[in-house]
């Protein structure tokens, strides 16, 4: 009977495609949040497969902090062109200019928290009732409790104590007006699954995931890329290193890792031997022990 058994990557693929098709069916105006990171790239790839030969029947929505790696933006535009998807971009800078959001100050200033404001405004403006995201339950303890279909109240808030039970794969997306859902097709994937799937399906990813030379500032044990968005403190020095990025977020809070890994196989070997979690390279999670839980309740990705 082993003949009729899917391996785990194909089972995860089938599950994610089912969830994406449910979101497209149950909601009037779904959208897929696209960050340029590997998880949202994989999610977009799955959406293409789900509806092939038709085009993806909903737009991709990118919340642009203005602090992205330029390589991410180039990749995004090429990908959208290649697959013929519809892309909507909303800018954190616009929220700041309109007085909706206030920029953080100081050398650790980040627009990470401000994204939530722009995101919620964009969902309201575009009347999005289901926002699909690439978050995985293995990333962080607050995410371990997420549902595939995660209900949000009219303020976009997540209440971990008041979630709908999710039985079998019977996903309940019913809601009252003003409420919306976050949908997480990759809930059951781990970092390793994502990399193996990228390899299996030969999915293009931004080149900064691979080893390259870069000017780096070492701060609080993190290797931050030198950029216009980072204020260099006294006694900090810029050094050139051979690095790659294990996750891609804003330049202000995404740390690089020293790495010679220049192919997918080498990246997988590196992750397999790694002794630090993926979110260990993110200063946005290090602000406090419950940083993710607090941000999620407020409506973060």
């Amino acid at each position, binding site marked *: *009977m*082993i003949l*009729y*058994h*899917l*391996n*785990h*990557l*194909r*089972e*995860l*693929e*089938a599950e994610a*495609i*089912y969830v994406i*098709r*449910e979101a497209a*069916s149950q909601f009037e105006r779904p959208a897929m949040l696209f960050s340029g990171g590997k998880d949202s790239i994989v999610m977009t790839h799955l959406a*293409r*497969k*789900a*509806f*092939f*030969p*038709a085009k993806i029947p909903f737009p991709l929505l990118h919340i642009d902090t203005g602090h992205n790696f330029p390589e991410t933006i180039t990749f995004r535009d090429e990908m959208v062109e290649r697959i013929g998807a519809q892309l909507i971009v909303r800018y954190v800078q616009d929220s700041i200019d309109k007085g909706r959001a206030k920029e953080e100050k100081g050398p650790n200033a980040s627009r990470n928290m401000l994204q939530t404001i722009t995101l919620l405004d964009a969902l309201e403006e575009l009347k999005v009732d289901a926002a699909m995201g690439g978050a995985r*339950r*293995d990333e962080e*303890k*607050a995410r*371990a*409790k997420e549902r595939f279909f995660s209900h949000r109240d009219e303020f976009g808030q997540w209440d*971990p*104590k008041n979630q*709908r*039970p*999710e*039985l*079998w794969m*019977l996903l*309940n997306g*019913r*809601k*009252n007006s003003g409420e919306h859902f976050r949908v997480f097709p990759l*809930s*059951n994937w*781990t970092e*390793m699954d994502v990399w*193996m799937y990228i390899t*299996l399906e030969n999915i293009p990813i931004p080149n900064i995931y691979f080893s390259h030379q870069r000017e780096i500032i070492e701060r609080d044990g993190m290797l931050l890329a030198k950029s216009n968005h980072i204020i260099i403190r006294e006694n900090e020095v810029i050094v050139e290193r051979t690095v790659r990025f294990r996750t891609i977020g804003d330049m202000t809070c995404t740390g690089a890792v020293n790495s010679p890994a220049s192919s997918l*196989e080498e990246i*997988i070997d590196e992750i*397999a*031997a*790694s*002794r*630090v*979690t993926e979110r*260990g390279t993110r200063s946005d999670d290090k602000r406090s022990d*419950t940083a993710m*839980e607090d941000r999620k309740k407020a409506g973060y990705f």
Partner: protein
Amino acid sequence: MSDFSSEGYLNMELLRFTTAGSVDDGKSTLIGRLLFDSKQIFEDQLEAITRTSTQKGYEHVDLSLLVDGLKAEREQGITIDVAYRYFATPKRKFIIADTPGHIQYTRNMVTGASTANVALILVDARKGVLEQTIRHSFIASLLQIPHLIICINKMDLVDYDETVYNKVVEEFRHLSSKLDIKDIHFVPISALKGDNVVDKSKNMSWYQGATLMYLLENIHISSDENHIDCRFPVQYVIRPQQTEYHDFRGYAGQISSGIFKPGDKVKILPSGISAEIKTIQLSDEMIEEAYAPMSVTMTLDRDVDISRGDMIVRENNIPNMSQEFDVMICWMNTEKLHAGGKYGLRHTVKDARCVIKEIRYKVDINTLHRNEIDKEIGMNDIARISIKTTVPIYFDSYRKNRHTGSIILIDEATNETVAAGMIV
């Protein structure tokens, strides 16, 4: 973890299991131990729990801290909801639905059990089979979890005594004769000390069986899916608005059960129209044989009116089609069940409404007695009810098919999922 090779990783199986135990049975410690001994703990996580353990003045690193979740839980020292954990060995990838043992949380165990291949039930060796053990085993049988592993924990506290273990096994065998459980295994363990969890215990030479990890890695799960009764609920109809694919009509969905091949003669429900499968594909890849749980897109040899919620089945193997049937439910809401009330209903990808015709009995899940007098159904109650639906449902009994035999009930005012249902 460096045992992974690209090739090996691609041939891994996925096993979903759920854990159940009473408060203080050491469930979190066991999960922490599985993660720790299978080397899935990262330095930053280990540092964090070591720091906390020291702060609390513990002598050892408290592995249960690894699976402690939200701020609200840590304050109260309990787990309030189902949390999902992941680990992998070179053989399998595991998804744990970690559910709390609190008495009021039957609904969480039902949730975790609904997708599980295996249930791990913890029994404290000092206490033996308790009311909670009966409850957990009953839920596992009600949800038709194919495999059960009974972990007799805290063996270190009974001097690793074989007679204690044998007594618990006997008690459990007596209990399980009343339940519908296909495959049961017993393992004597100490989650705290690590005996028989990943590594074989040096303290229990009398035990010749497998360790817990060995069982998890080797339990035969490839026949857990139903490969006999062909059921394909149509989830989404693909009609590309592109000239290149002008005539393309694809029926997309996830296969519930059975094996479908191009050329198969099929029937579409509810219309009853017959057709032949032309192609099965995912993206541009053609598929020779499609089976559960694959997500695919089918095309047929003729134009048929098919919409979401319809079901494609084999001509000579049709599911039940009815508007009236009985369901075992687990109630999951603080608002009680209204006899005669109307609810939203979801079955596969089909939405309907139903009315509660009759509450037949409530099950006392601690004694397994049927109560036909007290018919008030509230949070965490299990009951058998009769319902009538607004449209015909195409179903199999839950015992035969977990995908086409399950429903949820939805409160039409609040939109909350209020019950899990297994069609009798």
